[in-house]
């Protein structure tokens, strides 16, 4: 699989990391995405993406 661009979810995760800044880690990112986007996000998905 060759690609040099970000997927949509990856972008969301990355943006959330930027927003949370110092306090960004698996749990907070998952909760933040859940709250802000309203979709249900699995922890493992976030973890893998990270």
């Amino acid at each position: 699989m060759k690609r040099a661009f970000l997927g949509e979810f990856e972008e969301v995760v990355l943006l959330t990391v930027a927003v949370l800044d110092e306090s960004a880690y698996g749990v907070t990112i998952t909760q933040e995405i859940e709250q802000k986007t309203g979709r249900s996000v699995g922890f493992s998905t976030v973890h893998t993406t990270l």
Partner: protein
Amino acid sequence: MKPPRWANWLLETFGHPDTKEEVQGDLFELYAYWVARVGERKARWRYIRSVLKLLRPLAKRKPVVDYSTPFYLHPDMLRNYVKIAWRNLIRNKAFSAINISGLALGMAASLLIFLWIQDELSVGTQYTNGSNLYRVMENEIADGRIVTDEDTPGILTDELKKQFPEVVHAAGLSSKEGHILTVGNTIARQTGCYAGSDWFKMYSIQLLAGTPDVALNAPNNLAISRKLAETYFGDAQSALGKSIRFDNATDYQVTAVFENLPHNSLDKYEFLLNWDNYLKHNPWLTVWENGGPDTRLELRPDADPAKVNAKLKTFLKGRNKDISATFNIELFLQPETEAYLYSNFKNGQRDGGRIEYVRLFIIVAVFLLLIAGINFMNLATARSAKRAREVGVRKVVGAERSSLIGQFMGEALLLTIIALELAVALVSLLLPVFNQLTDKQLTLPFNQPFFWLLLTGLLLVTGGLAGSYPALFLSSLNPVRILKGTLRFSAGAQLFRRGLVVFQFVLSMLMIVGTVVVYRQLQYIQTKNLGYDRENLISIPGVGEVAGKYPTFKQELLQLPGIQSVTHMMTSPLENGNTTDGVHWEGKDPTLAIQFNNTVVGYDFAKTFKVKLLQGRDFSPAFGTDSSNYLINQAAAKRIGYKDPVGQPLTFGNQPGKIVGVMEDFHFQSLHVAIRPLIIRLGEAWWPNNILVRTQPGQTKQALASIEALCRKLNSRLPFSYSFVDADYQKLYKSETVVGTLSTIFACLAIFIACLGLFGLAAFTAEQRTKEIGVRKVLGASVASIVALLSTDFLKLIMIAVVTASPIAWYVMNRWLQNFAYKIDISWWVFALAGLLAIGIALLTISFQSIKAALMNPVKSLRSE
């Protein structure tokens, strides 16, 4: 309120070890959060799902490659490989030429050898039912010795067919006879045999006219080859039913015409005559005690040859009345397919034969290929310093080791293909000469898939062998070190290269020694004093009136100028295989059966042959009673044991007589066998098979002309034929001569190819050490000292090779010489000579390069930086 423990265990065991702790912590936190938000049951469920998704096979990182992987077989890449290979080839013209010519020569030689071997292996195997064909051989056990031959009783074939249900067909074959065949005005001497009536049923020889059933079934039947049919009658069909007059006396009717025998046929004849006719003319062959012709069998396909062998072993017991406690003849079978290659027997056991030459040449072919392959390896690794940069750059931009190996192997194969094409061209050019040399009719079988398979095999083996080490070596180099310019060859690589040079020269040395020994043995054979003077001795076959009126012929011959004496002999003077155990004397142990070779001669035998008489006298008409007197040789005298043999009684068969002379031992058989006891009877009035004329040295030419005139007068309808005994003698050792010539050629090739490699290596070393030489010269080194410096390294290697090869060569050649009863000793100087030769040639090769390097102007070599 704890998450399920088994899920934790799963995570601990199968989770990613690096992130385990972090993930576990996060999950605990989330679990608490989930419990608070959606209740415990759902939280557990989510927890388990998360754990499962994080287990390693599921949570495996997707292979994220941020840059493209090179595709090694991409057309661009391939083009690049070929371009680089071609540039290398062109830039190093000398090295490429050395590599390609060495490989081409090696492969050409192995191809020639292969063709020769294939032909040797095919002799006698062309019959469709070949695996059921057998020859009956016999072991004569007498006097503590076993003599193996094919001379079976003439009535054996019929008896075997009657007694053995396993035998489908059986046919005898007489030894070859020369006859004058006349039809109208076409008169020529032809050779052929008598054969049993089953002959054409056993051997799948195509009949152009006639049928196998009737071809040889009546006494005056005659089967002729297509060549004879065309010579005498124009074509095969018109020959059928016509008659041919033999020796101006007997008419035979052509009942079959067979296709010309292929050149790889073991039995060679132009015509075949009926077997009953043969037995009628040779009644002595119809008793079990006498042997002469061959016996051939075709067994049923389901027959067990071992069982037949067991029955044959004692078959003659009770039939042959001579068999006693001390004398025995055991029959056994030899498969037709083995008859050519395994013709030697020692103590009744199969003991090689031509198969030894086949094996020898397989080894030679492998040697030559090895030497050429080693050249390639050596030059490639030696020059790897130059290719190393390329390897470094390729590795840095992402070449993997396997692709580099592929590249270098491919290059080696490319070179090998060029070499192979050259080799095939060379072979097709040399084949006529090679054929003449080996007396074969070899062709390049381009239409046989097997041949292409062989070429491919040769290509892959040679290319693979030659390319493997350079490919592995070059691809293993470390790119950082190469590009930093601190590439050093490891001691191992250098040792390996030196080992290869030593190996090459060991092989070359082996071949030189082999050649010298074979050559000297041949020289020895050709110049050996046989005990009689074989020069100026003419042999005339006894046919027609020349033989019929022998006394007149002899008288008239003696009147001619330049002729010293005339005699005749029943057997060939060079190959007398007639043996008998019917010689008796006073005081002989009656239970002993001692084999004597025997022959019948005319008057003046010793005089004509110039055999030295130790005691007594020659047969001479001056003594009226010689017809029951005997001449014996020294070996016989020793065996008989009389103190003073001349005048002592001796009985041959049932004819008592006296010994009139003892001759010094002379060779009447090939030098492969020791001189055996010989007894000679006088038979002046017998039919002279071979008339032998001793001419005066220097007058042979005139004498021959007058002999011819005389023969033509007596045999007006027969052509005059004759041969020189010394020329016939040379022919006896034809296979040795061929082997000698071939081994000389191949040894020269081997050393040449090895020197090519050495030349390349020397050039390389000289090039590498240009600066060193420059500095040395500036500091005052002489040319001689620099040459010595460059040469000693190589000389040491060759010295080691010489020392290693000598004992091996001695062992191998000693075994070859065991085939001869009369042989040279391998003296130390042969090794010294071969060693000096190898060192000399190598030195010559190296010195060209080292002198060139030493003479270079140091200003030039040092200026470049």
